[in-house]
């Protein structure tokens, strides 16, 4: 994989100088290469540095050691070609769903400077995006009028409105009930199939990671390290039915084995 889109090479991060001096790292020696348009998932126990990884991939944090290269360029600051969504939808309650989705366009260039003059065009774009996740007709509703699942759909639309090359999701479905979660898996699957952006999905739901991702990475806890890389060779497009097949269950089971071993020993497991 010579021309990886996301390229982490031996990345270490300590949150401040003091921790660096003591040798306490939030993540250690992370290396990964992700191809263009690839969907990867990172799974691991809580507090294993998954969110730190997100901050590195978006340029919100600079590595203490090692390099992060995304799209052929070393990351030196916030990366506008990424969109983010979190477990909490964090929509602005005084804005309608449509205006919430439009928010990034008011901030990021080149949309920012043309926002007033081309507003109609952008509104149209936002409507289409909302429709594609099943929120057509809810554009003028306020966030508090939407269910949790709908809010999360809107939050993902907000992350995608500026056509990022990479979507970062930090446990985006963690607070939803099982059925809503599966619906949103499909919504995300279809969006990604249509627009071919990269996805880095942080989750602790193994079924979610296997269903959605091309490659699953398992992360260990403090220090955060990647200990397993597992390619998911299930054919696409994947239907929810696939989650009940033996091939699927085997992969989930295998990953579960790694996590189980992690929890038991609390130490690193040889790869």
């Amino acid at each position, binding site marked *: 994989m010579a021309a990886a889109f996301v390229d982490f090479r031996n990345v270490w991060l300590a949150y401040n100088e003091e921790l660096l001096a003591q040798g306490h790292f939030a993540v250690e020696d992370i290396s990964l290469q992700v191809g263009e348009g690839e969907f990867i998932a990172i799974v691991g126990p809580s507090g294993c540095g998954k969110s730190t990884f997100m901050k590195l991939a978006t340029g919100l944090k600079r590595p203490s050691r090692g390099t992060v290269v995304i799209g052929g360029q070393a990351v030196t600051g916030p990366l506008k070609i990424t969109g983010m969504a979190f477990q909490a939808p964090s929509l602005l309650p005084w804005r309608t769903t449509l205006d919430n989705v439009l928010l990034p366009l008011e901030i*990021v260039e080149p949309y920012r400077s043309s926002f007033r003059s081309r507003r109609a065009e952008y509104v149209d774009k936002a409507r289409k995006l909302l429709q594609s996740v099943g929120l057509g007709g809810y554009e003028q509703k306020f966030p*508090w009028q939407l269910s949790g699942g709908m809010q999360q759909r809107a939050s993902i639309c907000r992350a995608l409105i500026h056509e990022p090359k990479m979507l970062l999701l930090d446990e985006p479905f963690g607070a939803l009930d099982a059925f809503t979660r599966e619906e949103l898996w499909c919504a995300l699957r279809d969006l990604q199939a249509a627009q071919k952006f990269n996805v880095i999905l942080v989750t602790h739901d193994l079924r979610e990671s296997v269903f959605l991702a091309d490659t699953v990475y398992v992360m260990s806890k403090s220090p955060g390290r990647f200990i397993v890389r597992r390619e998911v060779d299930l054919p696409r497009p994947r239907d929810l039915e696939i989650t009940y097949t033996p091939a699927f269950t085997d992969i989930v089971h295998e990953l579960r084995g790694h996590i189980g071993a992690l929890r038991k020993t609390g130490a690193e497991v040889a790869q």
Partner: protein
Amino acid sequence: MSRLRPTSERLAPAALLVATLVIWQAVCTLFNVSDFIFPSPMRVAEQMWEHRTTILGHAWRTFWVTMVGFGIAIVVGVLLGFLMGSSRLAYNAMYPLMTAFNALPKAAFVPILVVWFGIGIGPAILTAFLISFFPIMVNIATGLATLEPELEDVLRVLGAKRWDVLTKVGLPRSMPYFYGSLKVAITLAFVGTTVSEMTASNEGIGYLLISAGSSMQMGLAFAGLVVVAIMAMAMYELFSLIEKRTTAWAHRGSQGAG
């Protein structure tokens, strides 16, 4: 929501007011309390009517002086609050000092203000300002300083500057806090004006209270108190209404249910 409140709940404040007046009147009549000690509501109403032009004049003075002081408090409170809320350094630097200042009794400033500005509107306006800007400032600062870190990340990744985050998210978010603080601040402003007028003015309700008291016109003094209470309550209700109109989103449950 307020529109769906049962009638009994809406009428409760009026009912309580009437009950209080009835008991007050009954106590005065039954125990034959002298009007020079504790005037009955009837007596207060009589006095209010008798001296209506005097009271109105003083009330108007107190009202506009309060509003000027309050206006300055809004401007200064919002600016200082913005400064405090937008920078951690400013927040940490200013908070202890501001708290210490707020703990000082504002009435103690009146003699100093008299030395600087003389008897009249100067001390009254400034006392109203000093007593009422603190809650406005603190509420704006709190609204700005308590942004969700996730949301800030979402915007920072897009290249948002500190200013973008403040104006797109911080300020709208702090509006409910702001209007909430106006309700508190306006009542405090009336306290400030009245206290200042009691020692440093020849006009206003504060002055009326002192002069009525010194000439044993207790009915008139009580009438003055009632007028201040009515003005403060009216302004409170006004800001409460503005709050509901402008920041309805904040009073409809939160998005946390997601």
